[in-house]
């Protein structure tokens, strides 16, 4: 299964990604949490600038798949490469560095509860040593975009469910990462807000970023497909399938 060469966003791909090289490459990847295999024999090559949806019933392994894509889990068999590096040979430090190029929206959004929302969103910059980054403009813009300007100084536990998801998305994209992996980013927000978040992700994609979204929100997927050349992957019977035009 290889990526579509017609993908419109490829032309503007991020400058620090080797041209043409796949950003995520799975080759016969399988995963098991200890019992039977949850995912097996998955092969896929995600080229820079692609836009993917990941669907499948609850418990199919969507989150597990995404966790492998940011090296939080290592495949129990098969080879997985991130930016051309095989995760099996990656040291803990390499993983940390690779993650700076991957923005992740976790399904249960996790924050540092004693830091304000704004500080949490800016944290990736501090962690990667970009403390001097001009946060007064960019951060404010980002907060406005996800509709959290008025909650910037709140603590994460004081946010509503949807506000947490938006904050998590803001944190994931503040570093302008090469890949954005989002796990149910619109699970707790209403239709208008999820449209708005989708627009944000589409814009990132237009800038050449690769986007992978796990979601079971069919209307979101339909809406995205009407705006971008998005591919829909489905996890069923432990395998990865490319869903057809009809979802």
């Amino acid at each position, binding site marked *: 299964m290889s990526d579509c060469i017609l993908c419109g966003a490829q032309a503007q791909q991020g400058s620090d990604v080797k041209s043409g090289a796949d950003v995520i490459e799975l080759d016969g990847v399988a995963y098991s949490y200890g019992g039977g295999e949850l995912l097996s024999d998955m092969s896929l090559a995600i080229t820079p600038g692609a836009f993917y949806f990941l669907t499948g019933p609850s418990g199919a392994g969507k989150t597990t798949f995404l966790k492998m894509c940011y090296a939080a889990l290592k495949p129990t068999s098969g080879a997985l490469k991130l930016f051309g590096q095989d995760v099996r040979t990656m040291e803990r430090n390499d993983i940390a560095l690779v993650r700076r190029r991957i923005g992740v929206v976790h399904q249960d959004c996790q924050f540092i509860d004693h830091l304000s929302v704004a500080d949490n969103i800016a944290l990736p910059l*501090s962690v990667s040593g970009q403390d001097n980054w001009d946060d007064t403009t960019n951060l404010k813009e980002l907060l406005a975009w996800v509709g959290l300007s008025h909650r910037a100084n709140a603590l994460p536990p004081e946010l509503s469910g949807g506000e947490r998801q938006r904050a998590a998305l803001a944190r994931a994209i503040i570093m302008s990462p090469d890949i954005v992996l989002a796990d149910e980013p619109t699970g707790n927000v209403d239709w208008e807000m999820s449209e708005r978040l989708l627009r944000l992700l589409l814009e990132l994609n237009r800038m050449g970023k690769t986007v992978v979204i796990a979601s079971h929100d069919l209307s979101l997927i339909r809406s995205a497909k009407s705006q971008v050349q998005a591919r829909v992957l489905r996890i069923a019977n432990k395998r990865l399938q490319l869903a057809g035009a009809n979802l």
Partner: protein
Amino acid sequence: MSALFSTLAALFVGDLQRDRVVPASGYTSTLTSLTAAAMAFLVVFALALSLASYRLAQDWSKALEQSATLRISAPVEQLDAQVARAIEILETTPGVASARALSSEEQSDLLTPWLGVDVPFDKLPLPRLIEIVQTPDGFDPQGLRLRLTGELPSAVLDDHVRWRRPLVQAANWLSVLGVVAIGLIGLTSGAMIILAARAALAANAQVITVLRLIGATDAYIEAAFVRRFAFRTFIGAVVGTVIGAGVVALFPGEEEQAAILTGLRLSGVEWMWLVLIPPILSSIAFSATRYAANRLLKGLT
């Protein structure tokens, strides 16, 4: 030394931006400070006890060295010869450092408390006393008595302060006990600080997960926690040491007390030992937290 210095330097660079990711306060960090303070306080006490009993053992040893006398009674004309012979024998006895006959003035002084100055000592047929200075191990009184009976049947060995010897051993032992206590306290503090650090790390599991998620290196995370903990411990240890030192300073010192106890108070250069407590305790905390953080991080992805 330079490692210690850089540790201390790292401790005092203040609340760096990155350190904010670790909550500034919390029960476990208060607990860490308190543990360090309590432990430092106890170390000061144990140190004072150990040093005082060491001094006591020294003093008593000195007293023991002059604790034996040999009394020779003989007709006046034979007395000098017998005394000379006794000294010869004593000087070849193992455990005797030196032996010396007391002058008659010294003998009178010894008796005055009992007899007053009115008794005509010089006219009495007084025995002669020989003072025996012993080596720290002392001599074997039974063996010496046997040797003496042959040549000098009138000689009486009076080893009346010999009962103090076990006391010296006890004091020495107490001093060692103090050192052992310090060691134990060190180990216990280490264990408690490790546990407190782990508890704090466990309490901050989410912070660590989030940091890993957004690409923080192990070194970054470790440093934030390690600094926080070593600093907490240092502050606690300083407070504990100062309070401990204050209490020890209230102890009776040598001036006010008679020779035997020689005061629990520390004296002179001994105070310098206390300065070492905070850096040592915070080094323990430093390694303990580093170890705990390392172990925790290895378990995360």
